[in-house]
């Protein structure tokens, strides 16, 4: 990552009739990022992605890809892009290879061997001669990824890339994304509802709700914060609660399953344990409880947070 903005989105707005779908969002994606784009259904993710790809015209705002404005210089902006928008769509009466050939024909300088390369990458070489209508959902997903990679893109947009795949397939695709980002310096823009997927493969994330950006940053930043959460198992929960109330580094205490759930400043949990033991509170165990992106996501979307 060198800080170069591969994608710049500024003040995008879009309404369909009276419904405001995207309401003034903006963010940047740097070269080499695996950028997670999260939001509940109806948040405006797909509309945003379609605007970024020049399929839907924004009412306001601009999108720049690789330095080219998508509205003013579409052909140059889209040249280095590969994408799956929503479910991968195909011509079911054409074979896998013929479907890829349809796209290869749009890139006259692409060598014919590239189709074999991408088919091999997604493990579909053996089924390339079969009609896509006979493919499983997982195979279509893999063929979609092959198609997105066909033109040697520098930026790849993926909408729910592991949807329909079995656990092994999911693992393979995630590994492939991480590998491509690292080895071929491909920037990925991934829209997904699988939050653990974002945790696993994305380095940055933007969260969208009701057409507005509610959080953005690195996954580490969003999850890390300054505090941590610990679960204390103790038979003296009442006494422990009294002791911890009013302690400066303890941010909140609430009853939990078999004890207490305590939010405290990061790195103070040993001190907390010592404090309880010194007051003769029996601590069975103290377990750090990581806040997953999922919890964070739910808190944000339910709480109506806005990006500062």
């Amino acid at each position: 990552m060198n800080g170069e903005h591969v994608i710049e989105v500024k003040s995008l707005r879009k309404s369909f009739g009276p419904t405001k779908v995207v309401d003034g969002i903006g963010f940047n994606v740097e070269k080499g990022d695996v950028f997670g784009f999260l939001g509940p259904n109806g948040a405006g993710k797909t509309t945003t992605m379609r605007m970024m790809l020049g399929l839907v015209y924004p009412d306001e705002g601009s999108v720049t890809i690789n330095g080219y404005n998508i509205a003013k210089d579409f052909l140059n902006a889209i040249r280095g892009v590969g994408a799956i928008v929503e479910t991968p769509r195909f011509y079911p009466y054409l074979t896998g290879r013929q479907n890829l050939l349809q796209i290869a024909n749009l890139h006259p300088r692409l060598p014919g061997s590239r189709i074999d390369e991408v088919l091999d990458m997604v493990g579909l070489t053996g089924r390339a001669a079969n009609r896509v209508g006979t493919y499983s959902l997982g195979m279509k997903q893999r063929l979609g990824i092959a198609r997105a990679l066909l033109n040697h893109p520098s930026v790849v947009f993926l909408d729910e890339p592991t949807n329909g795949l079995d656990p092994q397939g999911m693992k393979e695709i995630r590994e492939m994304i991480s590998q491509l980002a690292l080895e071929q310096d491909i920037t990925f823009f991934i829209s997904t509802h699988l939050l653990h997927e974002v945790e696993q493969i994305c380095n940055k994330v933007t969260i969208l709700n009701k057409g507005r950006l509610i959080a953005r940053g690195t996954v580490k930043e969003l999850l890390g914060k300054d505090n941590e959460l610990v679960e204390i198992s103790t038979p003296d929960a009442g006494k422990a609660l009294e002791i911890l109330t009013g302690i400066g580094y303890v941010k909140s205490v609430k009853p939990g399953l078999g004890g207490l759930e305590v939010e405290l400043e990061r790195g103070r949990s040993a001190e907390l344990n010592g404090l309880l033991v010194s007051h003769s509170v029996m601590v069975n165990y103290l377990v750090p409880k990581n806040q997953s992106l999922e919890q964070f996501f739910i808190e944000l979307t339910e709480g109506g947070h806005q990006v500062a």
Partner: protein
Amino acid sequence: MLNLIKNELIKLTANKKLYVGMFIILGVNLLPLLEMVTGSLGDIPIAGQTFPLYMLSTYLNVVMPIFISVLIADMITDDYVNGTLTLSLIHPVSRGRLLAAKVLALATMITLLLLYSLLLGYVFGSVIFGWGEQFIYQDVVSETNYTFSAATGFVITLGSYAVSIAPLLAFGMVVLLLAFHFNSGGALVGTCIGLVIALSFLGEIAQGLRPVLINHYFALFKYAFLDKNTAQVMVAVLVLGAYSIVPLMLSLRTLKKKDIVY
């Protein structure tokens, strides 16, 4: 551009609907055999060398308009609704070039289908009626007989099929414009069939309107090669030109402004 046209032709030729349509054309060629058996052909002088020209009216007024509607429903409406139009538009292809490729692919298909119909006409006509000694074509409406040598008749037949590409393509441009406003290929085809029927009725009940109705110019080959009416041909060129260019420009404008949401 050639690759874009190639893409469209690959899709069209891989689609079963094309072969169903070709089979229907084959079946239509057998109808005169049925009429011959039932005696409903009367005194119409049909022979192998004139059979394709007789069949041309049937193709132009019924078979081809429906076939063109089906092809365009696949190329535009279903392509959009199925989300496959998106595939081309997220690559370095302008919307104008994509539309141009689709129109040129349609023109190619119309040409090939007319050629197929012409060949079938000669084969079936010769087998059913024999080649015949002279080229005698009777206009069924005016009952005028046109007599030519076999060689001239062949040239006239070939020319008639060739000029018929123009009214069919003009009709295709009207369907093209409609196709951008439908969300179902089936509904588009149904509407186009209704349109063809409505235009025929309209031409019958309001004859003064005929010069501006597109189906009136499906008979362009008669004005050009049988009646040799230059004025009528010029009017046809103007009207068909308008029917081609105006809907094409409106289609281009529609596609360029359209939000691709599927």
